């Protein structure tokens, strides 16, 4: 049967136009639809910018304001991070009070010691998987996804800041994941810092109790309280001879 080449075209023109019209409408609908939500998507929070290298978080601890036997900072840290109070040598301790007494002079002091968040952390150098790392804003952390629990960082730390989790844990704080077989240490309350809180749990508790021994702030900001205080009065770093440049400074030692 001979078909007129022009005839099928003429016949299908309205059909094709119609199809194109429907397709265009459909595409427009698909393009617009994501903007129209009948049901709210579960999570519509804003995404934070992340850690900034312009900032260097640090702490200043005035031990002249620390009383022997006072453990407000330790208790606050335990509550904030979901750590059980320590009773055995296998229990993790992120911050502890060390009572020191100078042998020659007899002068004593009470010093809270935690991870010093060094600028040149030996724990970061030795970690085989890179789980121990320094964040852009100076906080030294353990990435528990990569930690294999070799404890080399515990051997390397001069301040005994790191603890190893010796038994299974339950009821962790949602903000502070921690578990058996990994190594952990003070995080400078990174979960609070990242959501905008201006201070750590230990500093806040010390201030609330009226001692005011711990100050937290940005060491890179000359106008911050911590920068002003360390400019005004002498402060020292623990084991400064090791040249690790810790972010935690002490007064009264």
């Amino acid at each position: 049967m001979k078909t007129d080449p022009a005839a099928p075209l003429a016949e299908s023109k309205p059909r094709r136009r119609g199809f194109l019209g429907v397709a265009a409408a459909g595409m427009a609908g698909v393009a617009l639809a994501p903007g129209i939500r009948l049901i709210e998507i579960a999570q519509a929070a804003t995404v934070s910018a992340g850690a900034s290298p312009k900032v260097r978080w640090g702490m200043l601890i005035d031990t002249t304001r620390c009383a022997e036997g006072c453990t407000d900072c330790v208790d606050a840290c335990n509550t904030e991070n979901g750590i059980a109070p320590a009773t055995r040598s296998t229990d993790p301790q992120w911050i502890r009070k060390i009572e020191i007494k100078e042998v020659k002079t007899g002068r004593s002091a009470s010093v809270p010691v935690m991870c010093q968040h060094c600028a040149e952390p030996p724990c970061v150098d030795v970690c085989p998987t890179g789980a121990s790392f320094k964040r852009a804003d100076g906080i030294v952390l353990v990435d528990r996804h990569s930690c294999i629990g070799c404890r080399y960082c515990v051997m390397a730390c001069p301040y005994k800041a790191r603890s190893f989790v010796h038994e299974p844990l339950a009821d962790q704080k949602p903000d502070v994941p921690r578990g058996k077989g990994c190594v952990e240490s003070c995080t400078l309350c990174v979960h609070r810092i990242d959501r905008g809180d201006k201070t750590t749990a230990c500093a806040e508790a010390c201030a609330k109790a009226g001692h005011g021994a711990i100050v937290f702030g940005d060491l890179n900001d000359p106008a911050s309280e911590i920068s002003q205080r360390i400019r005004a009065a002498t402060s020292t770093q623990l084991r400064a001879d090791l040249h690790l440049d810790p972010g935690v400074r002490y007064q009264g030692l």
Partner: protein
Amino acid sequence: MTNPRCAFDASPSRGRRQRTGRAGSAASAWVLATILLPAYAGEGRTPLPVLEAATAGTQCVEPADVMRRNHMRFLKHQRDDTVRAGVRGAKYSLRACVDCHASQKTASVAKVETNFCVSCHSYAAVRIDCFECHSSRPQAVAQQASK
């Protein structure tokens, strides 16, 4: 010049091929049985996954079939952004998943075998260790418990 010794001289067969003896046949039969038997025994032991509904009035950040295939990839990439770069509140936040998918009865995604994450993972026999460290309870409940 001596004839160099064959390296296998010390072994009983001196490196020459042997036919399986009675002991060998018995051993092979035993190994095969050990491997194949569990496939036939105990069918229907593992309960099928129970898909508990998430919080009412919400929608997942990705369609279900996308999530089913890719949730591990999303979470793995997101965790590096969160831990290393400090990015919080991003699309694939684990905490947001838990907040939504926690069971109404147990207030957890991993407490009982019918809870959301554990249900599919125990059926698929893929062990997850997320909740050895991460809390499996939604934020509000965990905060209540700590008070």
